Structure formats: structure tokens, C-alpha cells
């Protein structure tokens, strides 16, 4: 990101006295011509993307290592991830890559309105992605599906007291959206075209976040309903095993599908009873996936969720960074700064955005689709 900012704006402040007379304002003083400036920015961005790939490679390496060591843990834990939400987010990001590429085209053709619109669409998609992700994260936190030593998978817990993680995650976006709304009111009140062009897409993106939250909640609820009706989802089997409660008979029993032996030793943690389902339905679901009870503990499932949160968390931070630079581009685009000789920043942010998209395309199957 920083590399791009470099390419354009050195001219703004310093060395004003040293300019050659043929240097336009968008060309930094130390570059000979537009082409050299563009090539430098582009190469810089590609190198930055290389470092990004290597940055993520450490986590992919950890993933490969621990999945190779405990494949059953990964398969089992992956079933807690909601494929529908993951798939929707994949689609949203892919679509945002399209709008981003379109934005580059618009910048080259001096289609300033379209450029602002396309950047706004990209920003909106990013916000939807984060909205859906907030639902996923908060839902897992409610269930106690936390990383490493904090893993407390009381799987029946999601019917317990609501802890309000989603509200916490939404607090900052709500504040930002409120401020953006105030800014939009100001923009329309002062009839400033520039401010309207900036405020419109930003406010839309803020609203998109909550759209993503609603969509995520709806689908998550649907998933819950289908689990409790159409047969218990396999992971409920785990509720019978407390954390570190791995040596019980029922572990082996559930492996062999003999459910009646698998009745939990401690009645209050029976998911079938707690959720009003019948034991028979419970047996049927066992055929889908029958993990060992040892899996449901910090050193097993906890490690999976560590890797899950590290990978998706670092990816989400990159989405946030992308949103910041896209917002910066919207401001520049609203000033109509880009043209066929100077569109490097849009192009380079586009490259960055495609990489963020690309990494998600790997994360989605590796984390969600392995059962």
C-alpha cells in the first residue's frame, strides 16, 4: 500500500523548487517520465505482494504441518464452519475483484463517476465480507470455539446466556457508519459535489456491513434450524465430552455407532435431551461423522481454531487495510485526479485487492470444505 502512495504524491510537498518545468504535478520529481513512475510503482507493488505471500506462507505451513499430524481433528473441526457463509463471502470477494478491475479501466478512460462507483462497490463488498465474518466469529465465540488454551467447547452453550459478542463487533462499525451518515448530511447540505462523491460510497459501505451481518445471521439461524430438525449435526456428539473428558467409554462407543452406549455419563450435558431431539435422530446423524472424543480438547480442536483465527484474522486485517486504501482512492477519484497517464495507484491497489481475494480463495477450501 505504502509503495503506491509513494509513486504519486512526493510532488505535493517537497522540492518544489527543483522541478523541471516539464514535470506535471502528478509526476514525482525524481522520475523522468510517466512510464518510469508507473513501472516503479508496479514493480514495487509486485514485490510487496511477494512479501505478503511469504507472510501468509508461515501460517499455511503451520496448517499443513498440523493437518498432516492430526487429519481427523481438522475434518471434525471444519464441520463447525458454516460453508454457506464461507461460500457467500467467496462470491462477494470475487465480485469485488471484478469491480476493482473495472475501476482500473474507468481510471484509464477518465470515467470519473464510474470510477467512484466501482471503487464504492468494491468497498461495499469488503464491508459485506466483514459483516458476514463478524457473525461467524461471534457465533463461534458464543460456542466457546476459541483458540488454544481458551478453547471451551461447551457445545450446548449456545442455548445458554447470550454473551453479546456480535454487538461488540458491531459497535465500531456502527459508530463509523453514524459518523459517515453525519458527513453525508453535511455533504448534501453544503451541496459540495466533491463531498457528495466521497460520502455516498463510504456511507453505502457502512450500511453494507450491517447488510452482511443480517445476511449472516439469517443463514446461521437457518443452519441451526436444519440441525435441530433434520437431525443433529455431528458436532453435537461432542457436547457429551467435556473438555479434557476424553477417556470415557462413549468415545469409543460413538465410533462404532452404538449409540446407546454412547449416552453421556453426565446427564446435563446430553445435547439430544437438552435440545429436545430424540435419541434416534441422534443416532442417524452419527453416521455422517464420528470423531473421537479426544478431539474435543484444547490440544486438538483448540489448535485447529488457533490456526483458523490466525489465518482468517490476518486476512481480515488485510481486508481492513484494503478498505483504507480504497477509501483514499475514492477521495482522489472524487477529485478527478486519475487519467490515462496517471492511474498507477488504482492499478496497484487493485493488485493488492486481488491478492487478498486470492488468499481467501485458498483459505475457503482449506478451512471450510475439508469434511
Amino acid at each position, binding site marked *: 500500500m*505504502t*509503495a503506491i*502512495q*509513494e*509513486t504519486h*504524491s*512526493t510532488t505535493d510537498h*517537497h*522540492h518544489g*523548487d*527543483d522541478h523541471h518545468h516539464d514535470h506535471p504535478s502528478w509526476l*514525482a*520529481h*525524481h*522520475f523522468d517520465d510517466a512510464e*518510469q513512475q508507473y*513501472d*516503479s510503482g508496479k*514493480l*514495487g507493488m509486485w*514485490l*510487496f505482494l*511477494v*512479501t*505478503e505471500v*511469504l*507472510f*501468509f*506462507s*508461515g*501460517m499455511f*505451513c*503451520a496448517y499443513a*504441518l*498440523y493437518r498432516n499430524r*492430526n487429519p481427523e481433528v481438522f475434518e471434525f473441526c471444519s464441520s463447525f464452519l458454516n460453508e454457506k457463509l464461507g461460500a457467500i463471502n467467496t462470491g462477494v470477494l470475487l465480485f469485488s475483484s471484478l469491480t476493482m478491475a473495472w475501476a482500473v479501466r474507468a481510471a484509464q478512460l477518465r470515467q470519473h463517476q464510474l470510477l467512484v462507483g466501482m471503487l464504492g462497490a468494491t468497498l461495499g463488498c469488503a464491508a459485506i465480507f466483514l459483516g458476514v465474518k463478524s457473525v461467524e466469529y461471534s457465533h463461534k465465540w458464543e460456542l466457546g470455539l476459541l*483458540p*488454544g*488454551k*481458551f478453547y471451551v467447547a461447551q457445545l450446548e452453550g449456545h442455548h445458554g446466556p447470550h454473551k453479546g459478542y456480535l454487538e461488540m463487533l458491531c459497535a465500531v462499525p456502527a459508530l463509523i457508519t453514524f459518523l459517515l451518515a453525519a458527513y453525508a448530511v453535511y455533504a448534501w447540505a453544503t451541496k459540495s459535489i466533491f463531498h457528495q462523491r466521497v460520502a455516498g460510497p463510504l456511507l453505502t459501505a457502512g450500511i453494507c456491513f450491517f447488510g452482511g451481518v443480517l445476511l449472516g445471521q439469517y443463514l446461521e439461524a437457518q443452519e441451526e434450524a436444519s440441525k435441530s430438525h433434520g437431525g443433529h449435526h455431528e458436532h453435537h456428539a461432542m457436547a457429551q465430552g467435556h473438555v479434557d473428558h476424553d477417556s470415557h467409554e462413549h468415545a469409543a462407543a460413538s465410533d462404532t455407532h452404538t449409540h446407546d452406549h454412547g449416552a453421556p455419563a453426565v446427564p446435563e450435558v446430553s445435547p439430544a435431551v437438552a435440545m429436545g431431539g430424540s435419541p434416534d435422530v441422534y443416532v442417524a446423524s452419527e453416521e455422517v461423522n464420528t470423531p473421537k472424543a479426544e478431539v474435543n480438547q*484444547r*490440544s*486438538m480442536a*483448540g*489448535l485447529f481454531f*488457533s*490456526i483458523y*483465527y*490466525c489465518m482468517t484474522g*490476518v486476512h481480515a486485517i488485510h481486508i481492513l487495510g484494503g478498505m483504507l486504501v480504497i477509501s483514499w482512492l475514492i477521495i482522489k477519484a472524487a477529485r478527478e485526479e486519475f487519467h490515462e497517464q496517471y492511474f498507477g495507484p488504482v492499478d496497484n491497489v487493485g493488485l493488492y485487492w486481488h491478492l487478498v481475494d486470492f488468499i481467501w480463495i485458498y483459505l475457503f477450501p482449506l478451512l471450510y470444505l475439508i469434511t
Partner: protein
Amino acid sequence: MSVVDRPIASPVSPEADSYPTHHFLNHSKGFLSWALTLDHKRIGLMYLVGVMASFALGGLFALMIRIHLWNFKDGWLSNQTYNQVFTLHGAIMVFLFIIPSVPAALGNFLLPIMLGTKDVAFPRLNLSSFYLWVTGLVLFLTALSVTGLDTGWTFYTPYSIETSQGGAVLAATFGVFVLGFSSIFTGLNFIVTINTMRPPGMTWFRMPLFLWAVYATSIIQVLATPVLGITVLLLSAERLLGIGIFDPKLNGDPVTFQHFFWFYSHPAVYIMILPAMGIISELMSVHCHKGIFGYRMIAYSSIAIALFGFLVWGHHMFTSGMADVTAVVFSALTFTVSIPSAIKVFNWLGTMYQGTVSLNTPMLYALAFIFLFTIGGLTGLPLGALSTDMHFHDTYFVVAHFHYVMMGGTLVAFLGGVFHWWPKMTGRMFNDKLGMVSAIIVFIGFNMTFLPQFVLGSRGMPRRYATYLPEFQPLHQLSTIGSLTLGAGLFLALVVLLLSLVNGKKAPRNPWGGATLEWMCSSPPPHDNFSSAPTVGDPYDFSDIEYDGRVGSYVKRS
């Protein structure tokens, strides 16, 4: 701009041209004109001051270690303090001094001038690299003052997870993370500058070898450092969130941490030594007044070292538990790195052969480098061999080996480079006689410090211990005397440099007779380096460069 700088000095050039009244140092004034500067030369000088201050801090810790080890028992530091002192010595020297020393300080100053451009490709990124470095320094000082880091500079798990100095570990790992990005951005900037901004005539094989070395270094910085970034991030997450990836209690694997860490930190060894080798290539050629021997082989060997450097990290972990086949492969690959290193040493000696050697301060440091680096390189071989490494691992032999490479190599080359380019950077000549005395004291002191450590290590003295057996005391005391001598020599070098600012005579355009582009700028260079594109020739063609007594400088015969 009032200065008109001609790219090529002519014999009749007036004195005013050689001793400019207007240059980058007085181009603008005030604190902010430095703090917010985008000029690569000023950023380079700020780095130079910063890394030298860090070196002084790390050096004080080193002297504390050595003084503590004077007696085999009842040293003046507690065991806990001793752990913190050697940790901070290592961490400060590696992350704050050696890695940024040559590329960020000298490289920043020299790269655009040697290349013939006005600045690096991304001047703002360059400034932000510097402030990231400052942030890293502040974080390290926090780690130092809050509780004291005691994990060793390698932050090995599980110790770094379990130590009570959690705040210090977090501050230091975050510091390493930030410093990593400083290093990445510097490397990225240099690669782009060299690729896209070479002026007409500056082909790849007309680049000075220092630039080849910096380019190879930058490749490593860009490719290896992100892995360190994610490693220390995961380590921070381990401490904060207990993610368990490196924690055996949570089914994680501490050896994984070692793999991740050395995947960066072994290539980082070449981040440290490659630019130093680049300096030596320049110094050898200029002070022997003879074209560099085997230009292409030196250039290619820099790239070869950069690439091989990625394949050998496992040799740090032969005793950590590793499959036999893996160990053999890592050992064999380790030996291949010695080939390009030996090519360089051979070519430097080839350059000296039948050259007209000017024995001055930079040249003395360069000669010291060749001697010390060769010892450091050769003692790496028994450490790369599996059977002997079992004996030497974690002993003073390792300590002596990497100090010969890092300090005898990089630091000595860095000092040689600082003396060599000091007239260019500051416009002042230093006292050459005193400078040579400092080089000789450093050389003697260095060997007195670390040669005994080879003996200690081979007799079984383990590293990082606060006490030792009585029979090791004479060698330890010899080493301590050596370290004080070394400290005195380094202090003298600093005095020589600082004195030149007070009473040094003005430096001419080309005091040593170099043929690279920086010697065609005035000393110090003007704000924009070159007012018109310089004429690029062979950087090692000394046939038309001769001394002109009238201007007191070497000039190019027209």
C-alpha cells in the same frame, strides 16, 4: 538550486566546484528539514547516527558480559541480569545494528548516487522505513527498561512462552516485527530503484559491485523477512492468546518455531555479510588503483549466496531433532555456500596482486576484513559438518565463529566503508594516521577477544553460561582484556571521525581515486545528486584517473 554539478570533473575545474558552498547538508535548515526529509542522503546519515548509537549500546552490553566473566564465580551480575545482558547484546546488535548498518545507512546514501539517479524510487517509503526502525528501537528500549528480556536473541520456545518476563518478550517481538518491515521496505525500495531507474548507459554489468551486493541483500530482505514477521506474530499470539502452535502442552511443536525462525535468520546472516562484501569489493579496487579482478564472478557470487542462503537454515538445528537424511542434505547444502564466498576472497586477493596499494585507513580495515572473514568462514565448516557440530554446538566455538563473520566481517567492513565514504558524506577529511592506529588496535583487540573463544569452545565451554570451570579462567581473562582493547580501538575510530568534523580539512571531489559515479559529485554531493544525467563508464577503469596536485584530488583525464 545554485549548484551546477558537472558529472565529470575536468582537470581545470575551479576550486569552487570541488568545494561546494551549497550542498545537501545546508540545502535547508532546521530540525524538521531533517526529520521530514525525503532526501536519501539525509535519511542515510540519520540511519548512520542511529545504527552507531545502537552499536554503542550493544557494545556496552558486550563489555558487561566480558567483565562479568573475568572471575569464574561471583561475577558482578546476578545470573538473571547476566541472561538479560547477553540477550539484549545479541538482539540489539542483530536487529538494530548489523541488519540496517550497511544497507540502510551506507546503502541509502550511496545507492542512488552510484546509480546516477536523483533519489530512490519511493522516497516516502524510505523515510517511513527509518521511522519504523526508530519505533523498533523504542520497543527494544521498552523491553530493556520494563523488565528485561532474558530469552536469548532467538526467542526460542518454550522458554519465550514460559518466562516470567512476558511484557519484555511482547515488546521485543513486536519490535522485531516492526524492524522487519523497516528492512523489507528498504530492500523493496532498492530493488525497484535498481530495476527501473538506471540512467542511460548504466547497464547491469556497469553497476559497481556494491550495488550488486546490495541488490542481492535486498532480495533476501524481501523474501525472508516476512517469514520472521509471521513467526514473531505467532509467538506474540502464543503469549497473548495461548494459541499453542509452538507449545508442546497444547500439542504444538517448539521445533517448528526453530524452523520458522531460522528460515529467516539464516538468510539474515547473508543480509549482514553480503553488503559488507560489496564494500570490500569497492575498497579493494579503489585503494589498489586497479580494476576489480573477476567482476562478473563477484556479481554472480553475490546472487548465488543470496539464493543458497535460503536452503541451509537446518544447520542451526542439527541437535534439535531432525531426520538423518534431512541433516545430511542440510549439511551438504551448507558446504555449497562456501564456494561463492571463497570466489569473492580469491578475487579480492587477485585484485591486490600487482596493484598499487595505498595503505590508508579504509584499506587497513579492508585487509582486516579479509583476514578475519576468512577465519570466520573456515571455522564455519566444522560447524556445518554433522559429526563435529555435535561437539561444537552451543559452545564458545560457535560464538567465536559468528563473531568473526559478523563483527570481524560486517563491522570491520562497515567501518572501512564509513572511513572510505566519510569525505563524501561530510565533506571533511579525517586524520588518516590516527585512523590507521584505530584499525590496528581493533584488529589486535578483536583477535585477542575471540581467538581464545575458539579454544574455550573446543574444550567444552558452553555459551550463555554465567559461570565456568576454574581451568577456563586464563582464556576468559585474555578474552576480556581483548574486548577492552577492542572497545578502545572502536572508541578511537569514533574520535577520529568526530574530530574531522571539527578540524578536518575540506574533502576534495575524489580523495581516493575512485571511478564510480559518487566520486564525480562534489563532496558533499548537491541536493539532487546530478543536475544532468551523468556519463556512465566502466566503474573500475582507473586508466584515465590521476592525481592533480593543484586541486588536491584525483581527476579524470580528459
